[in-house]
């Protein structure tokens, strides 16, 4: 069994300076890295002979409009099936420069996950083979999951918003 401690120390040693913020919320090793390191890190963990963290569970984005310079985060959940070990890697991006390299060369499943993240948040994955909207209509001109956009359909008429302050 791998321990969070062991893996975290190894990563910190290997990628000295470009990984930070090691935490374990609810037992899941979480770390933050930069966009330059993310792909080498994923590749390293994937090919590591012992860790074999070679299953990409999920990629998603988060929007933090309040924190200046780090408005967007891309979160990777990776999993080592052999060791039954999960890790969460975060990359924070500023809202003016939403570029991050794609992970499609490492994982075929990253393709749609990245497209979804682009669709929802507008994060640009450099080198992605087909970075277009996936769930929303092509004509949509904004990225709906960002906090500033409303959820509701503006055309709904059968609701009285005033009643309960919604």
């Amino acid at each position, binding site marked *: 069994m791998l321990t969070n401690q062991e893996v975290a120390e190894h990563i910190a040693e290997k990628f000295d300076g470009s990984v930070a913020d090691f935490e374990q919320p609810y037992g899941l090793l979480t770390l933050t890295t930069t966009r330059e390191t993310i792909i080498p890190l994923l590749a390293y963990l994937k090919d590591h002979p012992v860790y074999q963290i070679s299953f990409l569970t999920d990629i998603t984005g988060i929007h933090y409009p309040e924190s200046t310079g780090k408005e967007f985060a891309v979160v990777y959940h990776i999993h080592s*099936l*052999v060791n*039954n070990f999960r890790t969460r890697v975060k990359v924070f991006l500023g809202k003016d420069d939403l570029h991050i390299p794609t992970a499609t060369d490492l994982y075929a499943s990253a393709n749609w996950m990245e497209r979804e993240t682009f669709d929802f948040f507008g994060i640009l994955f450099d080198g992605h083979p087909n970075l277009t909207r996936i769930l929303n209509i092509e004509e949509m001109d904004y990225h709906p999951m960002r906090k500033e956009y409303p959820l509701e359909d503006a055309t709904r008429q*059968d*609701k*009285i918003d005033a*009643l*309960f302050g*919604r």
Partner: protein
Amino acid sequence: MQLTNRSKQVSNKTMTFSESLFLPAIAKGLAITLKHFFSKKVTIQYPEVKRYLGPVFRGRHILKRDEQGRERCTACGLCAVACPAEAISMIAEERTKGEEHLYREEKYAAVYEINMLRCIFCGLCEEACPKQAIYLRHDEFVPVFTERDQVIWGKDLLVEDMNNRYKREAWTKEEARQLDQLKASGKVTTVETRAIP
């Protein structure tokens, strides 16, 4: 790749000679369907025969009155907050003198509307109600609509009719559980339905 010691190979793709002849399996299949051809039909002939929908089925809404015929709703708005579909809206009003026989609490819903097409019948309003006012009937559906303007039901359709009261075996889940345990132990066989929560 083997991760656990609990795996079990289930797929066998080599056909035996008799399987490769098509006909035995076809005959077997035909025998099965023929058996069903003559078996009893399970269909419920709906408009004539109606199925019992269970004791807690979530059907159409009803606004209960109490035993004196006063409306129970106090327009606290919890049901509207709990509604994920935002289908409930209401306007509260203070009860004035002389209306005590109409409304149970000091505040009441002057307007209480449910958009029956928005409603998803999740039962959260019934759960949220602290005054035993709103319930989802277990014996009736919301009927189908043909016009868009029929779908918002006001108090005229929602409030209980005192001449034809809605009866239930148990009015809270704790009560229902107790009742079920009694029934299971055989102490109680038949339960009277009653109109008062």
